[in-house]
């Protein structure tokens, strides 16, 4: 197959548009957090009051507003923010300057530290959660979907699709709490939540701690993927090339997997990429339900504490993951479907 120039051009094109997209996202995120409140009537002092605590006087608040730059024109503020992303910036904490190295996603005045290191600390938790769950839901969802499609109308099909319907309908805090109360508190098979062991320390404990969150999260997604796979398989198994594969005398297993599933999986690749990107930005409900110290939980705490820079940081990280996921999906599409590659 090689890597013809068309693929290279396609790659470069996608990369450039990803960078442009990221730039637009930062602008939009910035506008949401800093411009909209001002348009909504909040003064620079109102914004600053969130950073100094409730006990501060008006003069102190105003001083903070000037120090944080909230009184500057909006484009100067965005320039400073963008500069922080690219080159890093220094934040005056009252006691002195604290450096926030590039890429600076923001600096929390409440906990007095840059946001990014916090996020990087918590990323492994969210990644472990997402990766494990993704593995389970792909395995469960796709195999269920294939079997359902092949046994269309049978008892297995109807049972699977009813379960899938329940899966997509039930909220995760319900299935999560239910499984916690049964498997952890009742039977004592799984970890009770709230703990996380890094993989490099003890892989078994890592899996033990995450097992229930994985299953709960995977159940939700597997349900959707089972339905998608089933619909895709029903369509592709009626294609002419399936009849050709059978006419060649291939084994039914090869017909289903190599010819049917191969084609049916293409749209699933797209959706999987986006789902995974979204999850890496924080599995908020799952992490909260199981008290996992991931990015989602971090975001929830930041919102509760009114810690705007942290929320902004999480938002931008999440957006980054989605853009990357999009990019990967586009490239993967070119790998999966030769018609994209060679057109």
């Amino acid at each position: 197959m090689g890597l013809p120039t068309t693929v290279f051009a396609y790659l470069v094109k996608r990369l450039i548009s990803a960078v442009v997209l990221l730039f637009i996202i930062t602008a939009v995120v910035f506008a949401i957090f800093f411009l909209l409140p001002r348009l909504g009537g909040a003064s620079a002092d109102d914004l600053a009051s969130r950073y100094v605590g409730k006990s501060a006087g008006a003069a102190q608040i105003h001083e903070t507003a000037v120090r944080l730059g909230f009184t500057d024109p909006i484009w100067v503020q965005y320039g400073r923010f963008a500069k922080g992303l690219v080159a890093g910036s220094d934040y005056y904490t009252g006691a002195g300057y604290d450096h926030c190295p590039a890429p600076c996603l923001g600096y929390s005045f409440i906990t007095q530290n840059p946001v990014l290191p916090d996020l990087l600390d918590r990323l492994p938790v969210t990644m472990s959660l997402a990766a494990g769950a993704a593995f389970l839901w792909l395995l469960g969802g796709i195999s269920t979907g294939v079997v359902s499609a092949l046994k269309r109308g049978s008892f297995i099909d109807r049972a699977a699709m009813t379960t899938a319907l329940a899966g997509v309908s039930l909220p995760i805090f319900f299935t999560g709490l239910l499984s916690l109360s049964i498997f952890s508190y009742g039977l004592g098979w799984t970890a009770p939540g709230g703990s996380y062991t890094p993989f490099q320390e003890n892989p078994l404990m890592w899996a033990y701690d995450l097992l229930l969150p994985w299953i709960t999260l995977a159940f939700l997604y597997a349900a959707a993927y089972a339905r998608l796979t089933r619909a895709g398989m029903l369509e592709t198994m009626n294609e002419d090339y399936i009849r050709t594969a059978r006419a060649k005398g291939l084994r039914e297993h090869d017909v289903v997997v190599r010819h049917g599933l191969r084609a049916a999986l293409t749209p699933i690749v797209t959706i999987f990429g986006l789902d995974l990107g979204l999850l890496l930005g924080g599995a908020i409900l799952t992490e909260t339900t199981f008290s996992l110290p991931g990015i989602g939980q971090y975001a929830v705490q930041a919102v509760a504490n009114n810690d705007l820079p942290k929320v902004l940081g999480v938002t931008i990280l999440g957006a980054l993951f989605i853009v990357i996921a999009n990019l990967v999906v586009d490239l993967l599409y070119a790998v999966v479907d030769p018609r994209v590659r060679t057109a």
Partner: protein
Amino acid sequence: MTASTAPSPDTAATRGDALLRVTNLTKHFPIRRGLLQRTVGAVQAVDGLNFEVAKGETLSLVGESGCGKTTTGRMLTRLIEPTDGLLEFEGRDVTHISMRQLRPLRRDVQMIFQDPYGSLNPRHTVGTIVGAPFKLQNIKTEKGIKRSVQDLLELVGLSPEHYNRYPHEFSGGQRQRIGIARSLALRPKLIVADEPVSALDVSIQAQVINLLEDLQNEFDLTYVVIAHDLSVVRHMSDRVAVMYLGKLVEVAGRDELYTRPMHPYTTALMSAVPVPDTSRRTKRERIRLTGDVPSPINPPPACRFNTRCWKAQEVCRTIEPPLVELAPGHQVACHFPENPDGPAAGPVLLDTPRTRDDDATA
């Protein structure tokens, strides 16, 4: 049913009896590539056609896939706008007229499509489908729309009771009749029929062909038929225009063309048609073209047929042959035409004496 428009008085006098005239008609679809969507080339779907359609006649456009016949049909009905050239209907330039100005033209020029499944809205009843043109053009008929629609259904051989049925309740042939009824609603002058019978079974094809002929006689219709089936084209047409890769290669009267094809491509096309006669298997001298039709993005230079033509010489690759009249009413675009001195002597096409053509009017 009073849906006729007064023809503009000057047309017939100034333009002879041509209902439709195209001059240098061209359609290039731009190909855009890259970040800035720059135009990097064009699909030269139709490239400089000149022809006329006389009132009451049937002109067929015939050719293989990619020859531009469907694009031409869509330009004639102004479903798409030509890139270049002139399109005149009844002497009026309609090449670039606006959507609003198109309204009266839509009344006079109607289209019948190939796919009787795809061209009828499955959620609408036959009554709604056939009656739609009246509503779109705000036309009140004497007897009311329902009665007029039922008349139309009877006209095309359906029962008036089919008024409230849905398209899926009909067979392919009946659906094509519904499409024909719809196109006739406004008493058009010109009907462009794009592969009107190619999706139908053999026994049904003949029914629809006969119906189209009857309607033409009854309403003095003019047809432009777009088709790939040379046997159907011969049966239906008065004149035939053969297209190859966006160009006209030969235009002639039906009998002239089928007895004396002059363009090598026309000869090859006719020779390739399988005929239901086993005795021809051995007897027939075949012309076999090699390869497929080249891409209209990069058509061969000069004569576009030169890559597949057994007669091609250097001149065919350097100078484009113009479409010129080599016999009365017979235009050919070729440097080395076949049968230049009269009808074909060999048994390439017809082995029955041509005189039978006149006898067979019964």
